């Protein structure tokens, strides 16, 4: 019983981080919270498959990422292709200098949302969530070289979108 209540407490403690990751993956806040809720529900149902002592955060992130692929990827892909044109044009053409002291958070989030899914998840896990390359390669079942090359492409594209070189 103590084990199960601590599972829920630990999951509750992870909620803010899971939401942050959901906001990287999804393109709007409502989708992000739907994804977070689905992740919690799946985690609670699958708790027997979590090994106490192992990292609950990696386990939960993995659930979230897989759910996102299952349920939202087709929609996300679609919305990339259908992204409003003027939005695409705005990104990267903002007259302000990218390294301006007033950081344009909205702009970088929009740039993030324009990355291809497979680059965005790697960028989010490593640069935003702070996981190591090895952890991400295990979480996503990808060779570490693939993680590394997607990270290069994602970052390079982001930098091109948010600022002049």
């Amino acid at each position, binding site marked *: 019983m103590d084990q*199960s209540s601590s599972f829920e407490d630990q999951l509750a403690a992870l909620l*803010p981080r899971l939401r942050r990751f959901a906001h990287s993956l999804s393109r709007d806040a409502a989708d992000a919270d739907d994804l977070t*809720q689905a992740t919690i529900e799946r985690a609670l149902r699958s708790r027997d498959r979590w090994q106490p002592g192992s990292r609950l955060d990696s386990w939960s992130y993995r659930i979230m990422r897989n759910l996102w692929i299952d349920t939202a990827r087709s929609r996300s892909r679609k919305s990339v292709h259908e992204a409003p044109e003027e939005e695409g044009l705005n990104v990267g053409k903002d007259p302000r200098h990218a390294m301006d002291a007033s950081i344009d958070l909205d702009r*970088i989030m929009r740039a993030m949302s324009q990355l291809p899914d497979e680059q965005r998840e790697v960028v989010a896990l490593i640069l935003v969530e702070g996981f*190591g*390359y090895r952890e991400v390669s295990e979480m996503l079942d990808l060779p570490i070289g693939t993680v590394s090359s997607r990270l290069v492409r994602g970052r390079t594209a982001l930098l091109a979108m948010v600022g002049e070189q």
Partner: protein
Amino acid sequence: MTEDEKLFAWLDGELSPAEAAAMEAKVAADPALAKLAEQHRELDNQLRGAFDPILTAPVPERLQVALKPQAEVIDFAAAKRARAWPSLPQWAAMAATLAIGVLVGDQVPRNGGAPVEVQGGKIYAAGAVDQALDAQLASAPSRDVRIGLTFRGRAGEICRTFSQRAASGLACRNGDRWQVRGLFAAPEGQGADYRMAAGMDPNLASLVDSTMTGDAFDAAQEKAARNKGWR
């Protein structure tokens, strides 16, 4: 690893000490590379700055309830150990007193027939709630009144939880009537559907916990109890 990958791995602290030292020397000797590294450092900071506010933003309530009520409903024994509540009589009286306000305020059905009535200082189920408690099984399709758990209380009396619109409660058999032991309104703005999705009201769960002896009835026991007139 390509040179680009190596540069980023260096920024991310993923290189071995020897490789990192070599990369550092290379960046120091190459102004263009140094500028690129600086731009990417700044980009990384911006990215974190953009998403970090989510960490401190309030977590929407629906995400919190997705975690909490489930524990209370599933595991009454653990919930009981975790909480110390007033003993049942005061608690039930308190709940029943609160219930009056709820009923007068929100719950009097427009088509007549209040869900409870007061008799001899006690509150009894009436109308649709009374009928549901008498006849309806938990497995019945959703109607105006839903039945939840059925179990025996401390004096051996049969008790049942019910919900109607945005309120849920507990009633136990007293003679040939259903005495309401507690009735709880959903928090402001949360309708019945929300409640059903979120699980049992935590206050009701506590009352059930302090009332129940043994386990909740399964479907067969529930049916048998009904056939025996809830004795």
